[in-house]
């Protein structure tokens, strides 16, 4: 992401900035659903521009944060007890499980490799036939198609040492679950690049307002300004503020690919609980590539750390500073809760970018 704002841009951006700074009126709660939005909003210092009447809530859109403890436990078990090579996005390496993280497991001899993409994981599996490999398939609608591309490749390559440990999630159930916590959503731009606008339109029908937002400073400022202005009109609205990337129909190719290999399932969200039809799992026909079935993993009940309020933070019910562990027992170096471990988590962003005294 480039940080420079050109001169022409400054006019529109200046006006957007004035709108969000000068707002006075009924309290306006805006939830940024996406973790990358959370991260960029902090990195750009955008919170400091908001009028006192606007509250930003960091929602449940960081896959690392909403992935339950038991998922990490499953990955650690695959690595240490089943001898699998774990291939994962860097984001998951330091997330604490009930007893240990993948990083700790690596110190105990587990093979944990960080990859840039699921296709790289498949590539690793193909070139290391002597290893049993498992890719940690997490992420939302944006990321899931990449897992399916890798699976498709594995099938066409005819390799049998590659499987997925799925915790893929979909947003609509979360949009509905969080409605009461906010007046408008800042919808995740890159999820919408895949899904198109239909999910947001359904929310609009339920009376929920929102805008689809991009990730640069001008994009975030203009999206917030649109929310402020439209809210004044007093009726639900939906505006695509990221049209350079997001179209009405999204990517039908991506959705078709996912539908070929996966189907909706109920899914456990850390901090929110089990939500119907909020995840994607491999279809029965692809059981051979499902790590849970392939290695007959037992059902694991993860243990959340005592005192951790990540769940409430994710729901906007409290801010990180209100958690007794925040900044004391729970820091980015020694995270207790998931919102501290990912730099996209609300706790980590607060800790790293905001004044704490």
């Amino acid at each position, binding site marked *: *992401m*480039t*940080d*420079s*704002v050109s001169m022409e841009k400054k006019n529109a*951006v200046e006006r957007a*900035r004035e709108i969000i700074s000068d707002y006075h009126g009924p309290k306006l709660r805006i939830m940024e659903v996406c973790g990358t939005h959370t991260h960029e909003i*902090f*990195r*750009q*210092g*955008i919170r*400091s*521009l908001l009028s006192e009447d606007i509250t930003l809530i960091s929602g449940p859109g960081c*896959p*690392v944060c909403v992935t339950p403890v038991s998922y990490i436990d499953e990955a650690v078990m695959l690595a240490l007890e089943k001898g699998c090579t774990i291939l994962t*996005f*860097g*984001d998951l*390496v*330091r997330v604490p499980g009930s007893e240990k993280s993948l*990083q700790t497991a690596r110190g105990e001899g587990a093979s944990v490799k*960080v*990859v*840039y*993409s699921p296709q*790289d994981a498949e590539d690793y599996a193909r070139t290391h036939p002597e290893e049993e490999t498992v890719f940690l398939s*997490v*992420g939302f609608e944006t*990321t899931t198609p990449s897992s399916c591309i890798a699976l498709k490749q594995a099938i066409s390559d005819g390799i049998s040492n590659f499987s997925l440990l799925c915790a893929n999630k979909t947003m609509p159930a979360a949009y509905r679950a969080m409605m009461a916590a906010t007046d408008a959503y800042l919808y995740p731009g890159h999820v919408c690049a895949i899904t198109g606008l239909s999910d947001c339109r359904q929310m609009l029908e339920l009376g929920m307002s929102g805008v689809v937002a991009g990730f640069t*400073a001008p994009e975030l*400022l203009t999206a917030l300004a649109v929310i402020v202005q439209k809210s004044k009109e007093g009726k639900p609205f939906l505006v695509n503020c990221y049209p350079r990337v997001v179209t009405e129909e999204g990517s039908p190719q991506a959705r078709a690919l996912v539908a070929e290999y996966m189907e909706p399932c109920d899914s456990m969200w850390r901090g929110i609980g089990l939500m119907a039809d909020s995840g994607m799992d491999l279809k029965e026909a692809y059981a051979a590539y499902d790590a849970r079935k392939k290695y007959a993993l037992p059902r694991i009940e993860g243990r959340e750390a005592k005192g951790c309020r990540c769940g409430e933070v994710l729901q906007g019910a409290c801010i990180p500073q209100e958690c007794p562990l925040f900044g004391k027992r729970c820091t*980015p*170096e020694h995270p207790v809760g998931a919102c501290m471990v*990912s*730099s*996209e988590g609300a706790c980590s962003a607060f800790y*790293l*970018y*905001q*004044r704490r005294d």
Partner: protein
Amino acid sequence: MDLKTKTVTLAHGAGGKQTSELIREVFKAHFSNPYFTADDAAVLPGTDGRIAMTTDGFIVSPRFFRGGNIGKLSICGTVNDLACMGAQPLYMTCAFVIEEGFPMDQLEQIVSSMEATAKEAGVKIVAGDTKVAGKGQVDGVFITTTGVGRILDHADPSGSHAKPGDSVLVTGDIGRHGCCILLERDEYGIEAQVESDCAPLWNNVKAVLEQVPDVHVIRDATRGGVGTVLYEITEESGVGIELDREAIPVAPSVRGVTDMLGLDPMYLACEGTLVMIVPEEETQKVLEILRGMEHTQNAALIGHVTEAEKGRVVMRTAIGTRTYLPQPGNELLPRIC
């Protein structure tokens, strides 16, 4: 080079005929100077004034990278550590731990670039040691260098000398070494033309100190990068630092790579880029000197020291807001999902 074997063997470390041969054909051939003798220690002339001394171990994978190799790095690291204290590097020693089976031609290449780099920095290598470890006990070659330098009379830079109002400079664009190594390891399938900034900077530091003796802080931004060094300085000097994010020089290709992986170049290692903190009124003079010299053409003013926000590094963003630069912490992991 006229060695009979093509690889280093345990016999080269056993202290006998082959050890002498290795020292003569490889090390002495390159490090030749009157102080480098067969005696047990180098005997050096006395020097007036304060001396600075430092030591550093080098393990880098891969050993050869765009813009340098472990040998060049081992000289730059120690020369730059001395330079940061305002000390003219005079003498160095180097200790090698070499893995059995290490290719002799690679060793020759490493030693040869050590010679060239030492020459550029004007430092003499006066003693050395070679050990050969069994296959698998070390990864190729590890080098430890120790250096002694004479501190210029009026110079007194230290991490604890930053004062509110001072200007914060970097002597070049940041994060290139770390980015280069990341690319050379080829773990993420990314290609980019990024060369390590690895360079000995004594001549540059000397040029600055001769005209501006009152430089308050000089630090090389090696492991942990510029971000880590700035946090260290705020602690040691009991000050805050405010940076202008847009003024921080980053090569476009480095920016491309870090954006792809969700990393921040502020935490990537530099091996030929220093942080300098100077009195505000000397800023332009120091920049002019640096920009006129090899290795430091991209020197830039990136911010200033503040009384407020002690112990913190504040970023002024492109849209005029202020946020903290996150405290450096963990292993750098790509952020994707």
